């Protein structure tokens, strides 16, 4: 059964590749996806979706949801433990930090910063990297060399060191962190996209469509791009976590999102000295980072499995 479908696919791609409309292929895939999910609804990754939905909704409506100010606390209430611990109070469900600020409020507001940084960086990086990688791999020659030299340049630099050096010169701020993460992040996508394009451009269906007179952008975005999207998705899902963690790491080194912003990485970082006396300072934002990155990665896996035409039968 499996083998038969496979053979059909292969035949289809080699015979009709020249005329094949990828969009129609995508439609069939999506349709089958819906059918599948109706069938196996229980296999939806409910938990990750719920976690992400909660974080996103909470981030958007943060000011409405939180009774406290994320940056102004009451010093007298510092190190209040979470409500379920002795000494805790329902005023501060997750306790307070070293400045008497409500940790729940800060975690919710922190989601905003994290999401803004992660989405901006990832979208820019993915678009920039994939486009340039495709172009480099397909066109080759001078263009390829130029792009790959730039990629080498960005990848060769020890990111954290250069980021620290740049931030020390220009001062820490959210836009600067985003720019740095994009500049030093797109190269990985570009490299992978190029490598796969190099392999794919010799594929029969690409060759056929080229002979059939398809324009370069058409070949790139209609034929090659879908072929590499799966791996790019995997890379992207790997990268979301990476971006969030990179931001946290820069904060750890004192050059990330500036205080008193409630960025999660920053919260872990500034709470780390109190780890023995007040564990919740480090654990709460740490769990937030963990939950979000975990959910995104899980969702990424799931999406990849569902959208990958070759892997879906397994």
């Amino acid at each position, binding site marked *: 059964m499996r*083998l038969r479908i*496979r053979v059909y696919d292969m035949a289809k791609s080699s015979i009709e590749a020249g005329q094949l409309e990828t969009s129609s292929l995508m439609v069939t895939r999506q349709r089958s996806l819906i059918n599948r999910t109706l069938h196996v609804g229980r296999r939806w990754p409910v938990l990750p979706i719920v976690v992400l939905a909660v974080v996103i909704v909470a981030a958007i409506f943060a000011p409405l949801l939180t009774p406290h100010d994320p940056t102004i606390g009451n010093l007298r209430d510092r190190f209040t433990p979470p409500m379920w611990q002795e000494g805790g109070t329902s005023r501060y469900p997750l306790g307070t930090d070293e400045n008497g600020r409500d940790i729940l409020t800060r975690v919710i507001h922190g989601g905003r910063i994290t999401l803004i940084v992660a989405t901006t960086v990832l979208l820019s990086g993915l678009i920039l990297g994939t486009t340039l990688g495709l172009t480099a791999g397909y066109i*080759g*020659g001078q263009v390829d*060399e130029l792009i*790959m*030299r730039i990629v*080498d*340049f960005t*990848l*060769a*630099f*020890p*990111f*954290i*060191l*250069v980021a*620290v*050096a*740049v931030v*020390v*010169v220009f001062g820490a701020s959210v836009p600067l962190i985003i720019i740095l993460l994009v500049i030093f992040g797109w190269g990985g996508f570009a*490299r*992978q996209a190029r*490598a796969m394009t*190099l*392999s794919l451009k*010799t594929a029969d269906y690409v060759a056929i469509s080229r002979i059939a007179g398809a324009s370069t952008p058409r070949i790139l975005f209609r034929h090659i791009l879908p072929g590499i999207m799966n*791996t790019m998705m*995997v890379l992207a899902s*790997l990268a979301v*976590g990476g971006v969030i*963690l990179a931001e*946290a*790491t820069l904060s*750890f*080194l004192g050059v990330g999102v500036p205080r008193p912003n409630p960025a999660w*990485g920053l919260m*872990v*970082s500034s709470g*780390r000295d109190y*780890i*023995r006396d007040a564990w919740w300072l*480090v654990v709460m934002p*740490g769990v937030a*980072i*963990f*939950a979000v*990155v*975990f959910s995104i*990665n*899980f969702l990424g*896996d799931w999406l*990849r499995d569902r959208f990958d035409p*070759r*892997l879906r039968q*397994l």
Partner: protein
Amino acid sequence: MLKYVLRRLAYSLILVVLASVFIFALTRARGDPRYMYLEDAYITQERWDAWGREMGLDKPIVVQYLIWASKAARGNFGESQVNRRDAWGLVGERLPATLQLSGVAYVLVVLVSVPLGVMAAVKRGTVVDLIGRTFALLGQATPTFWLGLMMILLFAVYLGWFPTSGRGGLASYVLPGITLASGSIAASLRLIRTSMLEVLDSEYIKFARAKGVSSNLVIWKHALRNSLLVPLTYFGLLFAAFMTGTVVVETIFAWPGVGRLAIEAVFNNDFPVVSAVVIFFVLVYAVTSLMVDLLYAVADPRIRYG
């Protein structure tokens, strides 16, 4: 092929030159390096000028760069402004510690991620897969520094199995090694699993299986070899990534390596050391990526080199 290698070498050279310009400009953007000597509230003009002459700051910036670059090309990055030791020598002095740590982490990554990744792919949907994937997801979702701090707390303070920090006997490698490797184990496990799944699904593997080749042989000989192609880039560059990724781990575990030397030099604006370390890191990257590209060329005949 030779032509390709030569051109690839030239690129590496261009990369290093570009990097040197960049790092020179960046460090000078911090301002006059003499400011870093000043601790006291007061300095005489004579002393200020004397420092300037000694450091060649009275010359135009381009000349300063050329003088610096020509010396640097011979491995002379000048003396650290902090402790007046040869900057390149300091890198060399700190290198073994970093190499050892990266080596431990690299071995850990390979030993853990390859078998787990393959098993997860082969036993797809089973408990093994679940464990492997959960492991990967956990590893990737945990901030390195958080993991490091937690492990110190758990294994050094509570359990007392390993020293909290510092570089000593074998036991001291365990916690920093795991911390450095954790993120990469997860990433490479995922890559291997994905790549392995693709290969397992390919026609020739199915054919081999259909032909009756034993399952183990198929998996570990034919499938694994092919599925390592994609993660190869990753494994190659992992070396460079470890070298620079040690900054955080070395800071937490008080590990006397290049990463910490670098971060301290950046914060101190110790130009000779900053430039020596960054150029060193760039060289490491250039060499490893060159090797990866060449291996790639050998490994995948589909790639054309015009």
